């Protein structure tokens, strides 16, 4: 039992996270200082969780999509649409639950639309979701008519900035979602089927897996996750900013999934590790913020980090630390 634990800790994602956190700590010694303030935890490390939550949530949905050998470029735009829906509805006086439900519904519909293009019309995922990536932001602006729609609805604001047991709501929601989706995927056969589709869709279909419905479902989940992220982001700033909400976050989400070890070629995937990937990215961003680098260097620092993390994960380096690898010495049947 203990040994398994050690092996877990040695996986490249957690190593990378530890490395990034250490660097942050070196650059900014107060990084881990956490205080209790106004009934919640307060500190840079908590910010990482809070700010990383939207990308983590996107990454949860994105993992499924990527496992089926797809990609969803539209999540950022869907965030904008759903944030806009929720905000305009509460401003128009609808009760918060209805507004939130409607926004989630819109997210699912957007996702299913992508799924339809991919699964039924057989359009390549990148281009199928590019359609909504381009048009979605326009739709969001259409809803807000170009304004930043601000609101003062306490429930919605609580979703964005409140806290539970001292932890930021956004982080709690991301965690709950991660556990739920992971459980559903692990406890049912859905995870296996998703992998099968990603590895070889025609073989999976011949083996009796209804790949169309499953693909629709996977894209629908991605849309749903994007909707949650969109609502969170809007609730956080108490306004739906159709122009900027979720801008380029699809790239961060994809990056998180890949850092989490899921191959863009489909197949095996891990949702918790994708969430770790999102946290790594956010730890990097927060590190840049608190360390006082000049902003011109942001992108270069980020690129350097990505290269470092990927080197850590690459099979080339992997063989060097192959000692830690788990699956080699398992059951030998004969």
């Amino acid at each position: 039992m203990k040994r398994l634990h050690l092996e877990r800790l040695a996986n490249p994602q957690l190593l990378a996270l530890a490395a990034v956190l250490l660097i942050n700590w070196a650059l900014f010694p107060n990084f881990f200082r956490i205080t209790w303030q106004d009934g919640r935890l307060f500190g840079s490390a908590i910010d990482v969780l809070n700010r990383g939550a939207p990308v983590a949530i996107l990454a949860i949905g994105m993992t499924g999509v990527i496992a089926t050998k797809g990609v969803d470029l539209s999540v950022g735009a869907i965030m904008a649409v759903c944030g806009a829906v929720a905000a305009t509805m509460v401003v128009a006086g609808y009760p918060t639950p209805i507004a939130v439900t409607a926004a989630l519904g819109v997210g699912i519909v957007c996702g299913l639309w992508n799924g339809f293009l991919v699964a039924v019309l057989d359009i390549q995922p990148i281009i199928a979701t590019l359609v909504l990536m381009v048009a979605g932001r326009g739709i969001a602006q259409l809803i807000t008519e170009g304004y930043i729609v601000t609101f003062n609805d306490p429930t919605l604001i609580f979703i964005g900035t409140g806290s539970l047991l001292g932890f930021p709501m956004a982080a709690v929601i991301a965690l709950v979602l991660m556990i739920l989706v992971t459980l559903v995927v692990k406890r049912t056969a859905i995870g296996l089927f998703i992998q099968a589709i990603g590895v070889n869709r025609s073989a999976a279909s011949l083996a009796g897996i209804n790949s169309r419905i499953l693909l629709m479902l996977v894209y629908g989940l991605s849309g749903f996750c994007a909707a949650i992220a969109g609502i969170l982001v809007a609730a956080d700033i108490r306004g739906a900013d159709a122009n900027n909400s979720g801008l380029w976050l699809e790239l961060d989400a994809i990056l998180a999934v890949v850092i989490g070890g899921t191959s863009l070629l489909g197949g095996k995937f891990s949702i918790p590790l994708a969430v770790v990937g999102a946290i790594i990215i956010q730890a990097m961003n927060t590190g840049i913020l608190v360390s006082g680098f000049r902003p011109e260097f942001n992108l270069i620092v980020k690129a350097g980090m990505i290269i470092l993390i990927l080197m850590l994960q690459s099979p080339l380096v992997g063989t060097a630390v192959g000692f830690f690898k788990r699956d080699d010495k398992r059951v030998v049947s004969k």
Partner: protein
Amino acid sequence: QDNLKGLTIGFSQIGSESGWRAAETSVTKQQAEERGIDLKFADAQQKQENQIKAIRGFIAQGVDAIIVAPVVATGWDDVLTEAKEAEIPVMLLDRGVDAPEDLYLTSVASDQVLEGRTAGDWLVKEVGDADCKIVELQGTVGSTPAINRKKGFEEAIVGHANLTIARSQTGDFTRAKGKEVMEGFIKAENGGADICAVYAHNDDMAVGAIQAIKDAGLKPGTDIKVVSIDGVPDIFAAMVAGEANATVELTPNMAGPAFDALSAFLADGTQPAKFIITESKLYTPADNPQGEYDTRKGLGY
């Protein structure tokens, strides 16, 4: 001004990246409508190449005049020459260009450096001799307003050793990033206790920063002063609540003066001033923020 009635004018707008930009678009459309102009609107989605395409398209269509809100200052010589050859007058909005002056009729713009300086001057006066650690929320890295507003502000505080910019990061002109960056600053500066003022290159980032300050248990406007630029409705709302201290107005009505200049030019060939500078007015809570809020609310911000 009746001579503009029925004219077709092409308007190449940068995009709709901020509330201010949206307001400029809607004010321009409004102004055109008042004058009976048929306005052809082209949104460039933040890309200069799209703006050049749009201007070329307007020329091919044979419009009567063109207005452009250039995304950057450089790179307009060729396309403006083309417009000149086609004898279509061009007017520039909210930013000048690095091109020979005979290539355009007039340029209606604010002085972005002055905006920054106005904000800085206000802060210098406000803090007096007290020490003041400032944090700065920059606009998008590399964008002209970010560069100029930073420059103007630094000009204003230079020589006042008690004012220092402790931290400066980009907030991409957005609320969400403004909030996130401010959160980071607060953690980095002793829970915010060391920060005396925040200077944001636009109001949206300031609004985000105000929320971050409140979340950290501090009082924006009192514990940390908030000064920013643009004059959008929400910053006046914040002033009403005592959470923002000053903003420098950037008027969204750039098209009005441009149309006036065009009208005069078409009527009797009057050459308008090459550079029409709009006012950069400072607003503080003393300037009836509620009233300002109400007048601006409907402008499309």
